């Protein structure tokens, strides 16, 4: 199923901006509405937009299924590892051990930024993998 040339061109040109918006949402999670899950879904939507406007096979060649699986597992292992860092440095699990900066700046929430990044990557990979798995049955039904 090939979309018209307008849709394909606009989707290609919009893709970097959607990815940038996703990273903005992830990194400003502790300052404004947003956070790990929301930014991750926007990143996943960027990949889904490409898959819908071009063909699935082309998108899967660029964003390989195996890499997305690896990223997903890496995301959750990073989260558990950051939790354990809290234990090793003497506080409780998942507690904050970085200095709190001034409220209003990016480097102010302590460990929240890293949690948001790990969750954002995991959710982006997860949403894309779910989409790939559900769409692959297109030809078999």
């Amino acid at each position: 199923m090939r979309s018209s040339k307008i849709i394909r061109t606009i989707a290609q040109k919009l893709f970097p901006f959607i990815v940038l918006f996703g990273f903005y949402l992830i990194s400003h999670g502790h300052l404004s509405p947003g956070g790990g899950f929301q930014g991750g879904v926007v990143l996943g939507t960027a990949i889904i937009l490409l898959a819908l406007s071009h063909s699935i096979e082309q998108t899967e060649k660029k964003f390989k299924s195996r890499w997305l699986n690896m990223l997903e597992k890496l995301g959750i292992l990073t989260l558990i590892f950051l939790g354990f860092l809290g234990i090793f440095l003497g506080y409780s699990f998942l507690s904050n051990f970085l200095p709190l900066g001034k409220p209003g700046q990016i480097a102010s929430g302590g460990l929240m930024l890293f949690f948001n990044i790990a969750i954002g990557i995991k959710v982006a990979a997860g949403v894309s993998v779910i989409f790939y798995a559900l769409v692959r049955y297109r030809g078999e039904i």
Partner: protein
Amino acid sequence: MSIHIPILIIISPLLAAFLVLLSRKYKIILATASIITSIVFTLTLSSRVLSGDKVTYHLGGWRGPLGISLVVDELSLFFSLIVLGLGLLVIVYSMPERNYGRTYYFLLLVSLSSMIGVIYTADIFNMYVFYELLSLAVYLLIAYPKTGVTLRASFNYLIMGGVGLSFFLLGIGFLYAMTGTLDMFHIAGRLPAAFDSSMQMVIMSFVLIATGMGIKIAVFPLHGWLPDAHSMAPSPVSALLSGITVKIGIYCLIRVVYTVFSTEMFLLISSHNILIVLGVVSLLFGASMALVQKDLKRLLAYSTINQLGIVLIGLGIGTELGLTGALFHVLNHAIMKSTLFFCAGIMITETGTREVKGLSGFGRQQPAITFAFIVASLGMIGIPPINGFASKWLICLAAVEAGYTFPVVIILIASTIAAAYYFRVIQVLFGGSLKQGPMPAHEGEQVIHRGNLFRSWPIYILAAGCLLLGLLPALGISLVKPAVSLLLFHVVP
């Protein structure tokens, strides 16, 4: 490091679950090692908990009504030991099957970890999140062999479980609106003031939470998912479901009733009568439906509804004897039903058919497994030297003491019906010769032997547990008594 034990008990199976996805060779070793680690940690906690002071752990260092804490008291310890012990036996039982890939062990470990999460957490929304995680893992485990019947059973369970947990979440919403905090012990402190000002909201939240948990426990009107889900799942998963997962619903119900809503409020809306009525109806319904089943695992699934009715009667009576009997029956039913489902798994693979008629002659071929089956089914009926008798006797005694004689009559009738259907199965087992030979893949002697070793040892251990708890019921009651005395006599802090 020792103060971090509660969170390590939850994280170790979860971490092992994600590591299992990455490696194919070490999946079984990782799974068993993580569960054994959790059991060891739980046993080190038990000495401190049983001496009366509960272990609290604040996640992230946030204390008080703002943060999520993990609290291990005697009730949590009791349930978590059941969960971890049976979880280890389920993993051992599913080792010989070559078809279970990494996803199966991943789902099993995630479900065990989230069960411990539900049991240990002291924050009611965190309990909902872990319970949803458990339900998702279980839906996938039921649908693991992707045949038509398992997919339909899993979908049925998904819809009803989703609705039930939505009711639970709505009840949590009402509780938060009234008290402004989510920590269960702090809600218990602030709830009497809210009860004086708006009684209907408290009752509404209790009804919603109880209905949500009722769907997960499968009391009579809300049981529709249980026969399909428990019978069509693969055998170790059936044992996990019937043995442990429905007990988590009972734990949530007990925790919400006794810790969040104190006992006086519970009596004010006469819910103990409702619980006893529902228990009696589930009892009769489960027994009658099990009598007419031709499929062995469906019979065992309806028998679960039967036994959970007895637990609900015990909970509804609410005296010390009734609660002791109910919690002891939870332990006994977990052990007995797991034995029965493990034996059923072996019987189904060896004779190739799921119907009771097709099992004839199995008793002569494998007498040890049949002996374990007989021990467990005698316990389910309630015949003296096995543990089921002790717990049913305690509940009947509690009912007579509190003045309810009708449930006792119904329990005796249901035990007679249970005797009818279990003896029918045992009679077929010792019947004529095997109608159908063993499966072609099992013809070589070596294959049968190695598979049977890992599959039969959990059955022997569980059957020995049944006999031990039956001959020395004081052992079982001493495990249950700290939990009961916590629920009834300690002041909620």
